[in-house]
């Protein structure tokens, strides 16, 4: 079905960013616009999701050029689900930013750039053209360069250099892959590519291109040999920024991987083994990396890598059940990882440190906040009925059904590692007796902030925790969505027909 308003989530974020640029100097007005605008964006994406759920895939051709030649935007269940999650996490981070981002950063245009980042994310999810996907990736990384360096602290710049270098490398690889693909098929439209790649007889070259895509997206989503930039940079920016980075940026890579490898390159035996191998080692290296870390945000950064492994594992198993697991895990992980980094930021604002050695006694001093934080921590572990549990259930079921026992073993091992790490965090931050931490002068502590700012920070964490709980308890509905997504991923005919059908 064709509707010109498919691009509305993208255009609305652009509109917000432009509006915010007009109020460059008014900090309070910027905060208001950002929060209200994010709320409207959530409503838009809910409406879009409902429409797609009821009536099937929506498409639009930018500039009204017909499908394989023009730029297509496609809203199927998967992409609208991702847009919905993006706007939900975006709303929470926007509220959290109101409380936690310093005025100096807002003065340098934090909010406009933040909405440009959200525009890029929405665009990447809705793009139906592989080169357009690249352009959205560029918008995402350019905005994230600004966000990661804004404020200009020394540690921040050091992390930013690694981040920028690796992401530019990924872009180059991605662009090369697109160029080869265009040379092979003469098309850039993903639905059109799906048909044309299947007809190519030179399977070796197709596999090479597929591996280039795997490397390009792999750097962005931080899978095994290419993940080291992530823990080196994600702990440096302010908490609100690392929350949106941790929650969403790597997930775009995962989304692109799942999209490309279910639509364009249907993986053969070799690719499946490669992807599952990468997934297994990603789980292991992320988990072990998190074990030896002592900084709260570094632990969470390694956990991102570990759990990216779970999502890639679903792609590696490559059955419908496993893909349900992947999509469910993606849903759960975006919400929970965003919450975790916000929790880490809140702990820092209260205690003035991220170090596990120095932290302690949190439960005794702030029992209510601790209970709130426990929700996201334990749903990460996947204790039933919290949200992480169901996703792993599907992954393991999928793995067992194809007899991929060693990958199932790694998934279980990853879960145990996560459990162990979260137990360590819980014991270190919440249960251990508190020791006196020297008061830092340059840190503005939680109790010094205005009540509105405090409520904004806690409120956004409550919002996401409730969301995470409802994913866990309302798993039935999420499973329905995820299975519809997985079904359409395994059978891309509907997608292809929706994009190209109008021309035939």
């Amino acid at each position, binding site marked *: 079905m064709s509707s*010109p308003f498919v691009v509305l989530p993208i*255009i609305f974020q652009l*509109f917000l960013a*432009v509006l915010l*640029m*007009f109020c460059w100097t008014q900090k309070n007005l910027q905060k208001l616009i950002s929060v209200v605008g994010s709320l409207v964006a959530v409503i838009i994406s809910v409406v879009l999701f409902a429409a797609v759920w009821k009536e099937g895939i929506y498409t*639009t051709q*930018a*500039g*009204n050029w017909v499908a394989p030649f023009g730029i297509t935007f496609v809203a199927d269940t998967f992409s609208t689900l991702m847009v919905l999650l993006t706007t939900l996490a975006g709303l929470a981070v926007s509220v959290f930013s109101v409380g936690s981002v310093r005025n100096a950063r807002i003065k340098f245009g934090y909010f406009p750039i933040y909405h440009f980042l959200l525009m890029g994310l929405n665009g990447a999810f809705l793009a139906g053209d592989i080169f357009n996907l690249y352009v959205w990736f560029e918008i995402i990384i350019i905005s994230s360069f600004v966000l990661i360096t804004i404020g200009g602290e020394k540690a921040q710049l050091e992390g930013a250099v690694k981040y920028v270098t690796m992401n530019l490398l990924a872009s180059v690889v991605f662009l090369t892959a697109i160029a080869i693909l265009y040379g092979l098929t003469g098309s850039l439209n993903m639905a059109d590519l799906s048909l044309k790649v299947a007809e190519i007889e030179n399977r070796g070259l197709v596999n090479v291109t597929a591996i280039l895509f795997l490397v390009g997206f792999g750097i962005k989503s931080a899978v095994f040999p290419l993940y080291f930039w992530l823990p080196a940079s994600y702990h440096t920016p302010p908490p609100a920024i690392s929350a949106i980075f941790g929650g969403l940026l790597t997930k775009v890579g995962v989304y692109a991987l799942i999209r490309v490898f279910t639509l364009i390159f249907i993986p053969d035996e070799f690719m499946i083994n490669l992807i599952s191998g990468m997934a297994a080692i990603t789980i292991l290296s992320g988990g072990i990396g998190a074990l030896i870390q002592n900084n709260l945000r570094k632990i969470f950064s390694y956990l991102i890598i570990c759990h990216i492994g779970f999502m890639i594992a679903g792609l590696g198993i490559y059955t419908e059940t496993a893909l349900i697991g992947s999509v469910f895990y993606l849903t759960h992980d975006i919400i929970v990882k965003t919450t975790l980094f916000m929790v880490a930021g809140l702990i820092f604002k209260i205690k003035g440190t991220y170090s596990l050695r120095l932290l302690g006694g949190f439960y005794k001093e702030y029992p209510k906040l601790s209970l709130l934080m426990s929700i996201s921590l334990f749903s990460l572990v996947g204790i039933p009925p919290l949200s992480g549990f169901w996703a792993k259930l599907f992954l393991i079921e999928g793995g067992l059904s194809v007899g991929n026992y060693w990958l199932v073993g790694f998934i279980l091992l990853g879960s145990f590692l996560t459990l162990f790490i979260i137990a360590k965090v819980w014991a270190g931050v919440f249960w251990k007796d508190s020791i006196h931490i020297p008061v830092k002068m340059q840190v503005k502590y939680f109790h010094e902030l205005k009540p509105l700012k405090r409520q904004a920070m806690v409120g956004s964490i409550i919002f996401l925790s409730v969301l995470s709980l409802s994913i866990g308890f309302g798993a039935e509905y999420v499973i329905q969505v995820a299975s519809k997504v997985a079904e359409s991923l395994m059978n891309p005919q509907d997608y292809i027909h929706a994009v190209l059908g109008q021309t035939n």
Partner: protein
Amino acid sequence: MKTLIFKTASNYLLPLLLLFAVFILLRGHYLPGGGFVGGLIASIAFVIHSFANGLETTRKIIKFHPGFLMPVGLTIALVAGAAPWLFGMPFMTGLWMDEPIPVIGLVGSALFFDTGVFLVVIGVTLTIIFTISEGL
């Protein structure tokens, strides 16, 4: 720089180059040119002027902070892109006038989009260069 020749020349170059920039902008639809190149040429005009007469003089000519051009340009581009929605057509569909305007030629929504790009490029380039030359 205190050279009289350069200073005098730059006063004549500024309007000339701005005219050339607008020419490149208008020609951009079917021939080489367009908003991006035009914007660069226009900002080069201001930069040359600032080299000859000092940053403050150029600032006085522009009258407002060049960064303000960024949201203005983006708004124009956004409106030009979204205008086809009013006619129920997809985003960024080209809307064209029936009759050509003298000198400019056939005007369509693409021209307004390009004008937006033109302004954004001027805004960004001048903001960057002015900020850097302040610190020099």
